[in-house]
């Protein structure tokens, strides 16, 4: 309620937003849906001089299919991911992840780019993108660089984005046939930030896992792929997972008012098993 007044600027385009960011000399922030930034401002956790609004920019909203991947505009909303037919056909994991975000009002306003750039370590979309091996297209007026998800998410609320850069779109590889997906999270209540969330993609042949990707959110300062787990489950069937997967190594969970680090470690393994099992089942059904 008590928010210190700031200057509000409306960007005409994403490149216009880059120019305005550059002009502000580091005192400005972008707002799209505002579903993370504005609560933090209301709570007095963020103060700023200039707010550059990109929420009305239409160029970067929507999902298109291109050779080998889906390109998702940064201003695509969570709700769009939930309902988009291309996402449903090629990458239902993303729709499932989006469905876990906040509440219906958050999903109506909140954007893909906003969630990724905010980089909450327990957020659903950074996790899903990490699992999917997505690539983020950053612009500083023109296309500047393409950064893979696992490099973009540096640590809690910290990304590769430079001050004057804007996340413009995300390229999500479309996987071939035979893949199944799993997404689960444990939170205190529905809609709360995940204590731990997990995503998996699995390709099976004859009920055995041929290829897999599994990643966790909320278990470290950023979403992480579990390479060792992936290696250990090759050739496994869904019912073998419980025995195959040991304690998950390489995590760095925090203790907060939601859960202890120890509980997060425990959930990490439980959820890794569960999402891989879900993904296996779906892959078998698809086959």
């Amino acid at each position, binding site marked *: 309620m*008590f*928010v*210190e007044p700031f200057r509000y600027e409306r960007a005409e385009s994403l490149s216009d937003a880059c120019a305005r960011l550059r002009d502000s000399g580091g005192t400005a922030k972008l707002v799209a849906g505002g579903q993370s930034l504005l609560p933090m401002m209301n*709570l007095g956790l963020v103060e700023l001089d200039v707010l550059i609004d990109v929420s009305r920019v239409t160029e970067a909203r929507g999902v298109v299919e291109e050779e080998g991947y889906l390109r998702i505009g940064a201003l695509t909303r969570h709700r769009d991911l939930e309902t988009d037919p291309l996402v449903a056909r090629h990458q239902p994991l993303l729709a499932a992840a989006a469905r876990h975000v906040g509440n219906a009002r958050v999903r109506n306003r909140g954007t893909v780019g906003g969630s990724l750039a905010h980089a909450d370590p327990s957020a659903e979309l950074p996790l899903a993108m990490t699992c999917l091996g997505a690539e983020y297209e950053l612009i500083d007026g023109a296309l500047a660089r393409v950064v893979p998800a696992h490099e973009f998410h540096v640590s809690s609320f910290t990304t590769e984005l430079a001050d004057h850069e804007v996340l413009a779109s995300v390229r999500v590889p479309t996987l071939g046939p035979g893949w199944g997906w799993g997404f689960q999270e444990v939170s205190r*209540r529905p809609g709360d930030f995940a204590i731990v969330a997990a995503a998996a993609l699995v390709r099976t042949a004859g009920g055995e896992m041929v290829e897999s990707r599994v990643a966790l959110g909320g278990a470290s300062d950023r979403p992480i792929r579990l390479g060792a787990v992936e290696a250990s489950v090759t050739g496994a069937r869904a019912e073998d997972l419980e025995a195959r997967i040991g304690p998950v190594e390489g995590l760095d969970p925090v203790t907060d*008012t939601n859960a202890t680090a120890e509980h997060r470690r425990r*959930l990490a393994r*439980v959820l890794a098993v569960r999402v891989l099992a879900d993904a296996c089942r779906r892959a078998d059904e698809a086959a």
Partner: protein
Amino acid sequence: MSADEIRTSKVEELRVVHQPLPRHDQAEKIAGTTRYAGDLAFAGMLHARLVRSQVPSARLLRRDGSRALGVPGVVVVLFGEDVPNNEIRVDVPGQTVEVGALKATMQVLATERVRFHGEPIALVVAESEDALARACGLVEVEYEDLPVVSDPEEALREGAPAVHDTGNLLAEWNIDVGDVDAAFAAADVIVEGEYRTQFVDHAYLEPEAGVGWLDDDGVMNLRVATQVVEHYRDVARILGVADSKVRVIAPYLGGGFGGKEDMTVEPYLAIAVAHTRRPVRMQWTRNESLLARAKRHRNVMRYRTAAAADGTILAHDVEIVSDAGAYAYLSALVLLYSSVHACGPYRVDNARIRSKAAYTNNPPTSAFRGFGGMQVVLGYESQIDELATRLGVDPGELRKRNAIRRGDRLPVGQTIETEVLLAETIDAVRDRAGDPPRPSGPRKVVGRAIASNLQSYGRLVWLNDSAAAWVGYQMDGSLTVRCGVPDVGGGQASSLAQIASEVLGVDMDRISVHFGDSALTPLAGTTTATRQLLMSGNAVYEAAMLLKDQVLGAIAAETAQPVESLLLAPGGVASAGRTVPLAQALQVCRRRNVPIEALGTFFGPKGREVTRDLSGERIFPDFTFGTHLADVEVDLDTGQVRVLRYVAAHDVGRAINPKSVEGQIAGAAVQGIGQALLEEIVVEDGVNLTGGFFQYLIPTAADVPDIEVVVLESGEGLGPFGARGVGEPPIGPPLAAISSAIAAAVGARPTTLPITPERVLDAAARGGA
């Protein structure tokens, strides 16, 4: 009129009372037109905001508002020295009759010393909220940190940092009855347990808010979200003016639950208005509400229970330590409630209860629905369940065997004088629930448990409670009710309309209830302690009966008929063969100088003041009894708990409005489930870490199942038509029903609230599940 005249009634004769009518305040709330405390604005209105302590314990070396004053739009920055009497009495809100027990105080604005994180230090008044947003951070406060004590048991140890010069022991109550040691020596089985409850926030949706202004007669008007309009006296004392110069108006509240029983915005609005002579609005943020307004007490409760092999409870030995936080508020009385309720709704001939409340540098604790009578449900019902397990007896049968009946005495000495349907509530929840559920998958386990309780309704009898109400006809036959009751959202005002309608035969939609105004409505006391139906309900009943007698008497005289032959019916006064229309009957009254209005005053039951060694034939007016049943499913891998089914049964005496009763029970049950599983104000070394609703987790619609309510009606309450109070009683049983159901599922009992997934897994590990 007094409570000794218990008015029971025949259900079949009731026309309006006992009907599930829509509440008369609903249409406006649903149309979005109800104006809450924060919704009123004046032209030229100022805004006020508090600067609060950022540390839990410190000496204040310097307070400086000059930089804040430099912000454009800031009108004044006030400190304790600017307050005429910089002292809030925080003993018994709304108390009319002097009571000697407590004289606890705190400063309105701290001047030398702060004792909790969030304590008010300065008040900034400005032309806009934007100016406040800039200015409050510029008020400079220099602290010299002092030692912090944040655990109540540590606070009571020798050498602990003193929160107050008077020492850290705020209150102490003892109950001794029978020979406890002999009973333990003779016991076949002894059960011991330690139970811990947490700080809980009321978390009503409406944060504290209000508007103040001086009217044309120089009266300070405060229209605020409060459960107690009688705080006008406290404000007058702070301002140093006569009581008659302050008026408090309580509009419809956005929830209270005890959190708006103590003053919140009132003194600050009054000071700001007094200094600026302009209207002022103050609205606390959710963060402030969570940070600094008094919480529910966290308790440590150690129980030893002795029983015979047949399940008869022989003795309870109970120790309670309660965290009072930094200032007294109502802690002593809350602890008294804990002590009196500590043995539950069971016959216990031998009891030793030792309870203490300690000052700490935590947020203050005070009134909250259930008021100390609810934390102990976790203690005594866990003990009963453990006893049942140890003896291999059905937990319901064990409860029934020991259940209090009419004529039995509580350990404190009070005899239960009304019918008790405790056993019936146990049967009712079990009949409703039917077969227990099955687990939904592997690594899932289910459990079922019941928990019973008693909870007083009405204030402590030595507070000499009373309530008044005025009922008057308009000449067109419509009806006006005036009663000082604040309506916190539980249908308080609507119930009064229903009672008046029943007695006087006026349709509900022709009745207006004016409420919650300390100047214009007869004072009815606080909307707390589950007292308003008992007190204001009876006062309206009394006034309506007086008015009815007046009207019938006038018509009897006019028509030369015996008054007994007349009936006040919808439409008019009926006698054999003919009806005098009401408007005509009222004209008759006026012609014959018979008033068409009446003032009713109801006096609650009286009793002697209590001392540290509690004992009395009557402590509370009466009690409400009930039983809840919970089915839960536990995920053994994650510790997540799902409440599958929840049934709640209470003897409500008589349901004035069955829908309102069901709403009260369902709402309280869900609050209790929230305390059992989710909610906690987390305080670390006195620092409150709970900053918003993203951290303070109240149950959502998806966290709870349907609350299946079974209403039993003994017709034996002390309220009008035999109603018992039902606002608080249903909040206690969920603590024990949920924890015992989890214990049944995983094989060991979680004893610390909230029962987080990690605590569930700890219990499962102990239980071998």
